[in-house]
């Protein structure tokens, strides 16, 4: 098992490197000069050139590429142009927020999606199945930023205006008075802030997962071994949740890997809508400010998270399906 994981990680290096290279060249070959941000028209050409030298922009692109790779190998992602801090520090600060948001969302999405998919498969052709399919398709087709805005509109703005018993904050990760709260209240405050962003992100994913689980369950439920399980006298609960689901989950697990890029794209919008200080918002802001080191570092982190996620999916796959061997 360990060798399997190590081999997969080694195999992912060219992938990450390739993505890093693409990002590097897209960013560096794009028209526009980041030095413009740090200089004014009144500056002398010499001063301007000095800024370029300081930012390392005076070198030809292939030298910059090699330098960047060399620094990368030592875990150095450079210093942010706009924030004057090492990129690794900024990422260390913001990555946990993004992970909290995306893990919560993907967890909720899988639990919700799988349960709904099972229910639909077991009650195929029922009214519940049709309604869930249609509603699911709507959520599946929804831009996550719009869903997020609608959630804010309903559960934050209208909820407080109309005096609903509970409403949720429309932005940020914690309350202003967070530092003064008791540990229990802190947890509650974080959860309270997490609810809307995570739900907006999760619902879109859950709709896709439910569709997939339903199809997979329907495929497995007509297999011979399900009939055997029934012939053995097992209760319908055991037949469905143990014998059928265990098999139906195998293809669903591949979705973990497939959905990760999609999930991180989603965090970009959700973090923007909810002013959630995370990687997605960081990278979008950096792109708008032409902060090259952050763009490249942040993209690299996204790529690595996708690689790790795919690895987790592969390991899960091997755990659930005894027919897969690690070697």
């Amino acid at each position, binding site marked *: 098992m360990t060798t399997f994981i190590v081999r997969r990680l080694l195999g992912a290096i060219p992938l990450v490197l390739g993505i890093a290279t693409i990002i590097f060249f897209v960013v560096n070959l794009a028209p526009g000069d980041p030095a413009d941000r740090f200089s004014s028209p009144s500056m002398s050409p010499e001063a301007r050139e000095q800024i370029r030298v300081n930012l390392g922009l005076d070198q030809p692109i292939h030298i910059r590429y090699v330098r960047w790779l060399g620094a990368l190998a030592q875990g150095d992602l450079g210093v942010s142009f706009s924030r004057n801090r090492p990129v690794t520090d900024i990422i260390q600060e913001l990555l946990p927020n993004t992970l909290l948001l995306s893990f919560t969302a993907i967890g909720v999405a899988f639990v919700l999606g799988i349960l709904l998919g099972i229910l639909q498969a077991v009650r195929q052709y029922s009214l519940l199945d049709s309604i869930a399919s249609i509603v699911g398709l709507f959520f599946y087709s929804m831009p996550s930023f719009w869903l997020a805005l609608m959630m804010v509109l309903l559960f934050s703005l209208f909820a407080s205006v109309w005096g609903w018993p509970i409403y949720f904050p429309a932005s940020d990760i914690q309350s202003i008075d967070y530092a003064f709260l008791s540990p229990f209240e802190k947890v509650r405050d974080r959860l309270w802030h997490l609810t809307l962003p995570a739900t907006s992100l999760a619902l879109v994913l859950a709709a896709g997962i439910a569709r997939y689980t339903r199809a997979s369950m329907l495929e497995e439920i007509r*297999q*011979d071994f399900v009939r055997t399980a029934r012939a053995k*006298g097992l209760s319908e609960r055991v037949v469905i949740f143990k014998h059928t689901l265990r098999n139906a989950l195998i293809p669903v697990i591949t979705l973990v890997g497939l959905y990760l890029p999609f999930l991180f794209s989603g965090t970009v919008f959700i973090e923007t809508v909810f002013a959630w200080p995370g990687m997605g918002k960081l990278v979008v802001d950096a792109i708008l400010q032409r902060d090259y080191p952050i763009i490249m570092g942040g993209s690299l982190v996204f790529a690595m998270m996708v690689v790790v996620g795919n690895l987790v999916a592969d390991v899960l796959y091997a755990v659930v399906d005894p027919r897969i061997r690690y070697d």
Partner: protein
Amino acid sequence: MPLLEVTDLRTYFTTDAGVARAVDGVSLQVGVGETLGIVGESGCGKTVTALSVLRLIPSPPGEIMAGSSIRFNDEELLEVEPARLREIRGNEISMIFQEPMTSLNPVFTVGYQIQEVLRLHRGLSKREARAAGVALLAEVGIPEPDQRFDAYPHQMSGGMLQRVMIAIALSCEPRLLIADEPTTALDVTIQAQILDLLVEMQRKHGMALLLITHDLGVIAEVCDRVVVMYGGQIVETGTTEEILTRPQHPYTQGLLASLPGIGDRDVRLNPIPGTVPSAVDWPDGCRFRDRCSFAWERCAESAPDLLPVDGRSSRSARCWLLDPDEAAGRGAHVTPGEPT
């Protein structure tokens, strides 16, 4: 009193093309410790009959129609509560299937799948169930049962898996074992072994066996009595010897004639012409008439009932040729195994 008594069983399926009458009025009995064979081509309804006994027909699209009756040990299976039905399944009536490769769950060890029944029906602890499971594997002739207990289905051969299925089926000492084409998917050399094992286990445990097959050779080897099915109906019943030596229904005769014998290389096989009609619209009258070389107008006009042969109720065939009036009127007597 028979152990299993099926009366007028009708199992229909709703399909896009219409209602498929897969099993259309089947009545049969299995006595305690007896072996009854059901034989027929694919699509004749024999598997659906077997599945109906344990109410394993997927619904929808399948439905066991009102008026059908399946009595087991004087209990009406079609009316028992689901909980009671689950008590019977795998415990008093067990079933093994055609495809051992797909009939076991690929993600659980075979041991787990044996343990599951033992713990469910006999209330054994995990450890007791393991001991009993290993013993069962040994009993059905699996070498190194202790290691094989922890193997996954994909690590075993088809023959071995069918032995595992038999072990699962026997684990609670059922009174009736339903075997649906248990040897069809196996290699010829393995077929005989599995069949021998089934017969041995049946003698040893004194259970009744309902054996479904399309292979008259299997019937000859194992069964006490035979039911021949065609078009969702029984077309002939009798003891194995009677069916094999003096078949009365043209279909049974055709089945026997299409059987290759060993050594007679020069004799051409005589397949039954045509194919089984669709269960969505069985022909009016006799359902076999389109393929029958004896058929005449009456066969199209009305459907024959199961008519007694030699005046005994245990021996019957669904053919107008057996109508005493007809025999007198036509003066023809049909000799077995003589297709025209």
